[in-house]
């Protein structure tokens, strides 16, 4: 049989999706379905003096209008909980409809339900809310200043947590008298995730059974159900089914439990009718959890030979107005733990202040904490190489963790299981033609005009979220294992129930490849069922580049169990000992006598007929696994961006982008390349264009795609990709995960490239996004300074 694992098999999902036959939440229409429109705060911070729904209720087609008072009257808990706790975390309440205060533009205040969505939206405009506007805290550092407007009385100074990691005393000692001290202030710009499908919820309550079916744009239906039932709608999990149909992208934004699905469910429960809510694009931008938004001071200490002695970073992390589902974990466990990068750093200390502001909540967006960490580490490495006059590649090489040092215990809690960093760096340098580009750069610097710059990013990420024991020991109160139920049907087909819930990644293809490879059955005999709490045992979902490494490993384990059971059945049929049975090419046979065998189909059928099984052999052929990884996985690589800047107008042009990644074993190279491409587009977007901007009163001024610049195809280049393969040593597939690598590595590669191009002007750092205006201003300022000197 042809090899299926490691082969670029075309995604089986795509024919339906690319011909418009995919069924997304908003495509689904139910009998008697009504539509909800949510009334949202236009103010960043205000007291609600009163809400008058009279006019809305009198509008045509309106069925109901509800406020927080109605939620309370119905006796629902009505809260949106945080899903990840930290020691000493302040957890102020987040009501699903604002009770007496609104805390960000877009905070839900009331809901109107009508016969169609247009009537609902028109009537929502008729809800009169009497606001008493208050001052807003917007910037994470500014929000901690004395006298700043307070978001929650429970969090004085707007500080939700003050978290640290690493050895402060040891790190301070490393900085006592270093030969070289590199310092930089960094702002990691705020991002809006922009899934192509806006969030949507369709709630259908059946009062005869007291059951709620919620069809939802979700990356993790079970987690959504759990959080909803724990804190929002007052139904037990046994009475709630959450279904994720096709989901059109998420980038993290569809992990989180939002007020909107709780509100929609509440409406359906009140009216005993199906109710649908679908966000408009502007609603999406104001309410989908945003990403990044760090203000940091980062420092690196090095000895005279360019060896790193210590790294210190202090970060203000904007959490927004409320703690989103995984909000507290992103700037802590997913950030501080990655600050060793690919380097042997003997002392690291990281302090993070999590800050409430009157802005949209901030949570995981593709990369989640790891792009921020990579940005800190690789910006520092770049500045250090410049400051010390050492070549960018050489300084990295000098400080890499050597290949014989694995497993490597970092100073920031993680133990890297494997790694081999130099081959990826070497390959990237070779592909880009490093020496020739440096020669070209030197020539351009002497001749003037447009300048080129090279930016390196030797990144690491911790993926495969998450080993429960490891995160537990770090203070988290939940692990993130994954489940797989593999059922062989009597006719030999295989149905896999996975807790990984895809939203564009191609799980149905790659998971089928794993099963086909293990069991030797044709891929089209494998069916992958996901995204439905009514069908799938508990599962944790898709995010954190975890589906292949954790979900795929769970499937592989279940497949192994199936093979063991199959061998016992075959042994019974062949009147041999189970230890003597082997499976090859879909056939069980006795070792040494391959002609004496029984086909996969016979074993499957007999498993269910089972009329003459011995007493110790149970009927059926099914295996369930709850796989908890032993460690994170640690993909790594080196990316090199080449840019050209026009000093006259400040325009940055991306010329080339080389990415060499090590994601371990590869299940489907085409899908891996696709994930890298997408991640690169987003990361380059963050570096050059994307930026969520609030004005000082807390208005989101980049609330539409007119003002928020997403990268387009013509802004990008044909990416040059390659891989090295260092398999993950602790999971059955040797895979590491690839969904986020591109977005983690690329922002800093591009910024380093632009700073490299600007180094003749003595410009050390400009914050993202590197718009033509910012670059132009930086050049003009540098020239003015030089002229004045």
């Amino acid at each position, binding site marked *: 049989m042809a090899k299926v694992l490691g082969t670029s098999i075309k995604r089986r999902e795509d024919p339906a999706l690319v011909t418009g036959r995919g069924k997304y939440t908003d495509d689904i229409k139910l009998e008697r379905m009504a539509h909800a429109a949510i009334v949202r705060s*236009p*103010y*960043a911070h205000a007291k609600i003096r009163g809400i008058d729904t009279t006019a809305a209720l009198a509008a045509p087609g309106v069925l109901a209008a509800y406020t927080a008072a109605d939620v309370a009257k119905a006796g629902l808990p009505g809260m949106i909980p945080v899903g990840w706790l930290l020691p000493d975390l302040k957890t102020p309440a987040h009501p699903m409809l604002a009770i007496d205060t609104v805390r960000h*533009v877009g905070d839900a205040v009331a809901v109107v339900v009508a016969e169609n969505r247009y009537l609902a939206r028109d009537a929502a*405009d*008729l809800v009169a809310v009497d*606001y008493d*506007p208050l001052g807003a805290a917007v910037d994470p550092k500014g929000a901690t200043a004395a006298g700043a407007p307070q978001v929650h009385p429970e969090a004085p100074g707007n500080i939700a947590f003050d978290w640290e990691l690493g050895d402060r005393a040891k790190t301070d000692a490393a900085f006592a008298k270093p030969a070289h001290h590199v310092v930089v202030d960094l702002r990691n710009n705020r991002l809006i995730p922009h899934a192509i499908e806006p969030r949507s919820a369709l709630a259908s309550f059946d009062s005869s059974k007291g059951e709620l079916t919620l069809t939802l744009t979700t990356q993790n239906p079970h987690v959504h159900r759990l959080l909803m039932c724990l804190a929002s709608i007052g139904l037990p999990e046994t009475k709630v089914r959450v279904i994720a149909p096709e989901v059109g992208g998420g980038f993290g934004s569809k992990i989180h439990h939002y007020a909107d699905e709780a509100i929609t469910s509440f409406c359906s429960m009140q009216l005993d009718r199906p109710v649908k809510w679908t966000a408009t694009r*502007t609603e999406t*931008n*104001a309410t989908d959890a945003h990403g990044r938004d760090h203000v940091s001071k980062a420092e690196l200490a090095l000895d005279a030979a360019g060896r790193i002695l210590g790294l210190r970073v202090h970060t203000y992390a904007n959490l927004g107005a409320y703690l989103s589902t995984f909000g507290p974990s992103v700037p802590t466990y997913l950030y501080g733990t990655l600050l060793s990068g690919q380097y042997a750093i003997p002392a690291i200390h990281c302090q993070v202040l999590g800050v409430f502001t009157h802005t949209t909540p901030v949570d995981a967006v593709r990369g989640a904490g790891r792009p921020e960490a990579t940005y800190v580490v690789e910006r520092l490495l770049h500045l250090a190489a410049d400051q010390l006059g050492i070549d960018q590649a050489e300084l990295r090489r000098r400080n890499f963790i050597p290949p014989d040092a694995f497993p490597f215990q970092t100073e920031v809690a993680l133990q890297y299981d494997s790694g081999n960093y130099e081959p990826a760096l070497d390959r990237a340098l070779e592909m880009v033609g490093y020496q020739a580009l440096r020669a070209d750069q030197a020539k351009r610097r002497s001749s003037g005009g447009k300048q080129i710059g090279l930016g390196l990013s030797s990144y690491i990420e911790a993926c495969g979220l998450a080993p429960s024991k490891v995160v537990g020991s770090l203070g988290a109160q939940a692990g993130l294992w994954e489940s797989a139920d593999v059922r062989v049907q009597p006719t030999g087909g295989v149905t896999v129930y996975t807790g990984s819930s895809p939203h564009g990644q191609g799980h149905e293809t790659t998971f089928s490849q794993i099963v086909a490879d293990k069991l030797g059955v044709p891929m089209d005999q494998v069916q992958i069922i996901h995204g439905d709490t009514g069908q799938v045992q508990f599962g944790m979902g898709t995010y954190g580049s975890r589906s292949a490494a954790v979900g795929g490993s769970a499937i592989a384990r279940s497949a192994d169990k199936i093979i063991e059971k199959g061998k016992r059945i075959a042994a019974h049929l062949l009147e041999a000992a189970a230890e003597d049975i082997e499976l090859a090419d879909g056939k069980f046979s006795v070792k040494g006598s391959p002609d004496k065998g029984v086909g996969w189909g016979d074993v499957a059928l007999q498993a269910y007929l089972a009329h003459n099984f011995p007493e110790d052999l149970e009927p059926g052929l099914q295996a369930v696994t709850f796989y908890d990884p032993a460690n994170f996985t640690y993909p790594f690589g080196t990316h090199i961006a080449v840019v050209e800047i026009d000093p006259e107008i400040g325009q940055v042009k991306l010329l080339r982008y080389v990415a060499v990644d090590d994601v371990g074993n590869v299940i489907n190279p085409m899908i891996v390349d696709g994930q890298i491409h997408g991640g690169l587009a987003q990361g380059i977007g963050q570096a050059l264009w994307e930026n969520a901007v609030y004005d000082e*009163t807390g*208005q*989101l*001024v*980049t*609330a*539409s795609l*007119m*003002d928020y610049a997403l990268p387009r195809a013509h802004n990008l280049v044909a990416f040059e990709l390659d891989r090295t393969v260092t398999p993950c040593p602790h999971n059955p597939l040797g895979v590491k995960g690839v969904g986020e690598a591109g977005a983690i590595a690329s922002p800093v590669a591009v910024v380093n490239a632009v700073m490299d191009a600007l180094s003749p002007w003595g410009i050390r750092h400009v914050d993202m996004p590197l718009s033509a205006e910012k670059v132009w201003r930086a050049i003009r300022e540098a020239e003015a300074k030089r002229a004045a000197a």
Partner: protein
Amino acid sequence: MKLSGQHLFDVDRDRLWQALLDPEVLAKTLPGTQKLERIGENEYRGSLLVKVGPVQGAFDGGVKLFDLDPPHGYRMEIEGRGAPGFLKGIGRLELEARGAQTNLRYEIDAQVGGRVAAVGQRLIESSAKVITRQGLEGLERQLAVSTGASPAAPSAPPDNRITTPAVDLARAAAPVAAAPPSQTRLAGEVVQGVFDDLVPTRSRWPLVLAALFAVVAVVAILLRTCGAS
């Protein structure tokens, strides 16, 4: 958002001062004003229909005048709310006599929020400039009607700042009916304003030519395609 500018009126300062305190005059002056009434000493309430880009809707709000220094000027607080969002501003008007004419200088510092700010971000400033300009022109016409004269048709402003030419009373013909400018005219002028902001005057002709050429090319292609089929 900060707006400032000046406008020269062909009336004396006392006349302009009175007009600026008369809700009936003001209601007919501001584009989109549906009503404006005095509710107390130097306090007015009313409603305004606003259209900024794709967002439109009614604002209910009030204007409060303070620091009145007749006839030299006053300060005002503007506040409006409605389905499209809210606006809040502090303004200052100063009247300076220049012989028979009066120069009005204004400064407004406004905050805009909600949907009108979210979706109309690119158009807010242009819209505000146009609303202000049309308001001043409307006021001019009001004054001309009440003094039995008519202003010249407003010509395009010399640049994108809000400075309309002084009214030439000598060219005045028959009185015109005074009405607030229509929403259509407002929208048209916003487009013009955005264009003025984006494209420097000297580079307009090539753009217009390019647009014309594109239209001709498209028509030609369509004709050929249709002819071939």
